[in-house]
């Protein structure tokens, strides 16, 4: 237990370092560029006369205060952190005067729901099937399965999402391909709304599952087929231990360790895949928000989305890392 606490505190320190460095990087990128953010935003705004002048003025004040363009850079940096700790990154332009953080908060549940569901499904199902395929290398069905996942796995997210969109948008219009829920239902805790949300999430989630699945399947298959010939498996087979126990209890458990590491590594990639998927299916999550923010030149919103997503991905990796020693006796011993 003592060792585990030590491990957790070390990891926690690393998590804080990651968040600190990531957010500092976002700050640096925005400040070391030759472009003055305030003027850039205002220039983009003046091209759009649909904003009231007081909105432009308030934005100018907010931006100048936020970036403190007249102060030394260290002072700006400290101010940035102070504001960030309060969760305040200024008003967004997309929905003036809503704070940028509030928009992120509204979009977050959609992305989290989509990501958690699809990642859990791909990870669990992919690893189970992969383990079975590794343990029974001669099974025809699993062999075919391996070939299919090999074909789909390297294809970029965008292409898979787009193929689904073409199929269900043009040839088989049975599933909704646009938005998070239907226009004619009122958001709330009611069956029509929930079923509409579920229906709208099928295609985006499917595209994420299709792309992610192959990697886990192939990785697990390779790991298991190497373990299968190990002495302890042969011994267990000779001792008459049930096959299910061997696969579930010994083989998967041992092969799970590198897969968990891989999961931590993959989380960042999964996030960027979600952005694309949301864009293709017009899903009201963080990804769509980020794209809109960039296209509109909405500075505060871009910063808000970046900081929140860096924190979220780093946090998710941290949680996966905490499970790690519980599975691996070698790490536990350390």
């Amino acid at each position, binding site marked *: 237990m003592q060792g585990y606490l030590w491990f957790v505190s070390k990891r926690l320190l*690393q*998590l804080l*370092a*990651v968040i600190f*460095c*990531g957010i500092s*990087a*976002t700050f640096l*990128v*925005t400040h070391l*560029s030759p*472009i003055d*953010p305030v003027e850039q935003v205002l220039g983009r705004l003046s091209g759009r006369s649909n904003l009231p002048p007081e909105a432009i003025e308030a934005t100018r004040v907010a931006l100048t205060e936020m970036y403190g363009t007249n102060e030394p850079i260290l002072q700006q940096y400290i101010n940035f952190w102070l504001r960030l700790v309060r969760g305040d990154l200024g008003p967004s332009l997309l929905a003036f005067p809503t704070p940028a953080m509030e928009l992120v908060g509204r979009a977050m549940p959609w992305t989290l729901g989509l990501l958690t569901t699809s990642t859990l499904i791909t990870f669990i199902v992919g690893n189970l099937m992969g383990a079975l395929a590794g343990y029974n290398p001669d099974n025809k069905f699993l062999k075919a399965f391996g070939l299919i996942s*090999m*074909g789909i*796995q*390297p*294809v*970029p*997210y*965008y*292409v898979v999402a*787009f*193929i689904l969109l*073409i199929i269900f948008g*043009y040839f088989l219009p049975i599933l909704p391909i646009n938005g998070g829920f239907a226009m004619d239902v009122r958001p709330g805790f009611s069956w029509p709304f929930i079923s509409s949300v579920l229906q709208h999430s099928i295609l985006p989630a499917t595209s994420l599952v299709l792309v992610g699945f192959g990697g886990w399947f*192939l990785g697990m298959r*390779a790991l298991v*087929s*190497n373990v299968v*010939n190990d002495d302890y498996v042969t011994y267990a087979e000779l001792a008459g231990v049930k096959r299910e126990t061997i696969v579930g209890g010994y083989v998967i458990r041992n092969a799970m360790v590198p897969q968990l590491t891989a999961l*931590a*590594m993959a*989380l*960042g*990639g999964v*996030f*960027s*895949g979600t*952005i*694309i998927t949301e*864009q293709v299916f017009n899903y009201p999550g963080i990804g769509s928000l*980020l*794209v809109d923010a*960039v*296209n509109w*030149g909405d*500075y505060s919103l*871009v910063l808000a*989305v*970046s900081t929140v*997503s*860096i924190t979220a*991905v*780093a946090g998710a*990796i*941290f949680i996966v890392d905490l499970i790690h020693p519980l599975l691996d006796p070698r790490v536990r011993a350390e």
Partner: protein
Amino acid sequence: MFSVFRDLIRYNLEFAIGMVLVTIVVVFAALSFISPVDPTLIYMSMPDQPPSAEYWFGTNSRGQDLFWQLSAAFRNSLIFGITVAVLSRIISIAVGLASGYIGGWVDRVLMFINDIFVAVPIFPILVLFYFVLRNNMDSFTLALIMACFGWPFDARLIRSVAVGLKHREFTRHAVFSGMSTRKVLLEEHLPYVMPIVFATFMNNMLWSIGLEVTLAVLGFTNLNNPTIGTVLYWANSHSAMVVGVWWWIVIPVVLIVMTFLGLFLLAVSMNEYIDPRSRLRRMGA
């Protein structure tokens, strides 16, 4: 090296298929050097022509001959992928070998930095760079940024091999005969990690080209530079599928799948080749 290659072609179907696919794509991309048209110009031919004897892949709504357009796009994307892969390999070899061989606090510091880079999601950072630089972002800058994030995972792999090499007999011989650390790493240890470097090279290319496609499709790169991603971006922005210019989407998608599948198969079969157990199984030993 050549005998390894021959073995792979002979005993490994995946490698052979991957090799064929990648060769086709590379040849196609190389054709852009003799392209009769400048791929950055628009309205050079009749727009929206379906594939025919004159225009093999048809033309798009911007009046570009898709065959030459895609050829240039694939050349740029492949060069981009190779640039990122080479740059990030240099970092990961340096960090991995040094970390594994020197050990101690050097190892700890390097791996701490390594873990930080693993956990920072690159996509928001890239978007942020585009947001600030807009069209001043050329593909080399983009490659440089991606390379800064593409090394940590492979550095860890290389480190694990280097730790094993450190305790081998020949390393001690080299050290006792007065070789400098730099020489031991470059001349004695580097050949051992080369197979890993090659396999991860392909993976890294896949990763960076995929990321470039992602960025470009969203419109977050310099759209006047023909790459795989920007071709898709323009096809999307002209709603090619809706107006019936299907070849503008289908042909690039087929080529992308070929490229990615080819590189992926090469990476997988190289990985398998590195692991002697599966190599033996394959050769029927």
